[in-house]
């Protein structure tokens, strides 16, 4: 966890009315953390929300998971794709609806932004899988949600956020640095706040909070994967996240993820292929 400075604390008070997760999803987060929960228990909670059920099933049946037969109900989805996957899908669907849906006006394209987030998720999953990380599913979700703090910034003060993006473009400095300077807080810290409020699992919260690799601290494969995926997707111009700072994967992350030029090429080839399979996640933004 990143300890906020006094200044940041003060700035954070501007964001004290954080959006809350829908009851169904909050309940999902809670029951999946209990090891005695069964697929049927989870089914009973998710099925209360028909729209959510429909979207989760559509994603579960997408090429991204590639299960050879049709999955027709939540119980099946849980027993086949796993408890974590379904929890993460429910979470992603809800967070997208709350935080990524395009608004009428604005200079920030939520469509391109979501595209960036999906690409980072897919890429983080590939990277974490290569080093045998215990939950590649969480890497995917951490990637999807890593920039959630930007949505919050944009929603709270659109003009200020756009000004930060402009400043980043002009000075070629990292967006988070500019945010800290101008707003006293950056999107990673805000994202961490949201994650805390939503009771997200600790590893997801850590990845959201630390994806720029601030400070020394021990590096874990999930944080490193999201960080490297963020850089690779920006370099490949997959989507747009408003950041014009330097693109460089931290050496510690390169080492932990066993990346070199050749490995990166392999990852990018796989990314291109897997992104096609992840098409269903992009459809979110077309009001599906």
């Amino acid at each position, binding site marked *: 966890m990143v300890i906020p400075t006094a200044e940041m604390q003060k700035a954070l008070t501007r964001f004290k009315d954080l959006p809350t997760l829908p009851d169904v999803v909050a309940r999902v987060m809670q029951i999946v953390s209990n090891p*005695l929960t*069964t697929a*049927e228990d989870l089914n009973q909670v998710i099925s209360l929300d028909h729209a959510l059920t429909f979207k989760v099933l559509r994603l579960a049946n997408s090429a991204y998971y590639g299960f*050879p037969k049709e999955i027709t109900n939540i*119980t099946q989805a849980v*027993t*086949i794709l796993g408890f974590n996957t379904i929890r993460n899908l429910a979470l992603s669907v809800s967070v997208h609806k709350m935080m990524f849906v395009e608004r009428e006006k604005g200079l920030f394209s939520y469509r391109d932004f979501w595209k960036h987030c999906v690409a980072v998720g897919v890429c983080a999953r590939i990277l974490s899988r290569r080093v045998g990380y215990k939950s590649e599913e969480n890497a995917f979700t951490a990637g999807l949600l890593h920039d959630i703090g930007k949505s919050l910034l944009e929603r709270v003060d659109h003009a200020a956020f756009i000004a930060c993006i402009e400043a980043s473009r002009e000075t070629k400095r990292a967006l988070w640095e500019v945010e800290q300077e101008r707003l006293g807080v950056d999107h990673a810290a805000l994202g961490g706040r949201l994650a805390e409020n939503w009771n997200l699992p600790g590893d997801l919260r850590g990845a959201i909070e630390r994806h720029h690799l601030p400070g020394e601290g021990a590096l874990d494969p999930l944080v490193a994967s999201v960080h490297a995926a963020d850089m690779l997707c920006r370099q490949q111009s997959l989507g747009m996240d408003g950041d014009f700072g330097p693109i460089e994967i931290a050496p510690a992350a390169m080492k932990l993820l066993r990346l070199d030029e050749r490995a990166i090429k392999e990852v990018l080839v796989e990314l291109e292929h897997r992104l096609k399979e992840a098409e269903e996640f992009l459809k979110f933004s077309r009001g599906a």
Partner: protein
Amino acid sequence: MADPRDEKVSELESHIETLEQINEGLRQSFEELSQLYRLSETIASALTFSRVLTLLLDVLREVVDYDAAILYLYDERSGALRPNLEKAVTPELRQRFQVQLQDGSLVWALKQGRTLVMADSGQGSWTQGVDEDDGGRAFLLVPILARGKPVGLLDLAVPSGPGSFSQRDLSLLGILANQAGISLENARLYEAVRQDYVDVIHALAGAVDARDHYTREHSNRVSLYGVAIARRLRLDEAFVEGVQFGGLLHDIGKIGIPDMILNKPGRLTDDEFQVMKGHSALGAGLLRRVESLNHLVPLVLYHHERFDGRGYPEGLSGKKIPLGARILNVADSFETITSDRVYHRARSMEEGLAEIQRCAGGQFDPEIVEAFIQCYDEIAHLRDSSRGGPA
């Protein structure tokens, strides 16, 4: 107005209740951990590949009450799963198992590396009758991995609905399957090392036979005959194996005998014979230096001792000569009599048998001669089938 003490009491009561729940949870966790530990230990105790697989099926029965099971092994080259073991598979169930193999579910599960539950693909659509209904039947697909690589997959038919398994049930299965994966990897390594050991022994035996032109296949035959006799005496498998390897290596000391003596045409002088007699001690000296061959030293050192005490190197007699060496002495003598040598032509099997019988109580232990006679037919057969083998 409510008495504040009543509130305190009820608050305390609710605390106690919570504590009791936590305690019960901990007790259950402890019991499960103990069970898991015990089952893991059981699986880890298996040394051979097939034993690990058999134990895994037995052990899982304590965790899930399955009706039938098929264990598949993953073939890395073809990427296919092949059935290796099965338990209680009825013709009706076999069809269901078959469907999962064919429709790609099993390979998909293996790729996920995570235990998953499938609804019964029985009559009609596979999705029927599984919804909120907890009855019926399901299949648990448990991948077996070793260091993250697929080794196999366990398909279990269980008599409960797919939605009724908790995360803990599934992770318990996964942990045991992973333990089995590690054990399988160990068994594979153990079996490979073991094969290396046997190969090295054969190579060493071959080195002697290659130098001594008249003794091609000699060591191998002595080993085979010795094993036949040892089995007839109902000795345990470890002992029989000692005789097998001792037989292969009994003449290893001949590596240190000069060529002009070892391959001399005609009879050896007394001095030359003294040198030749040194081969058993030489061989024992070589084996003493190899930890894993140490147990063969007595067999090699004493294989020329005679029951009547007139052998070498120490002139031991009767039961003072180690049993393995007494067995090898009979096997070695019979093989030599019935093969061409520098100093004699091969005699017939019957002549060989007669010679062995004649020397019972003299050169040979009568009990071993008795066992030899009992398995003579088998040995004669071994002699025929190993004739003309490669040097």
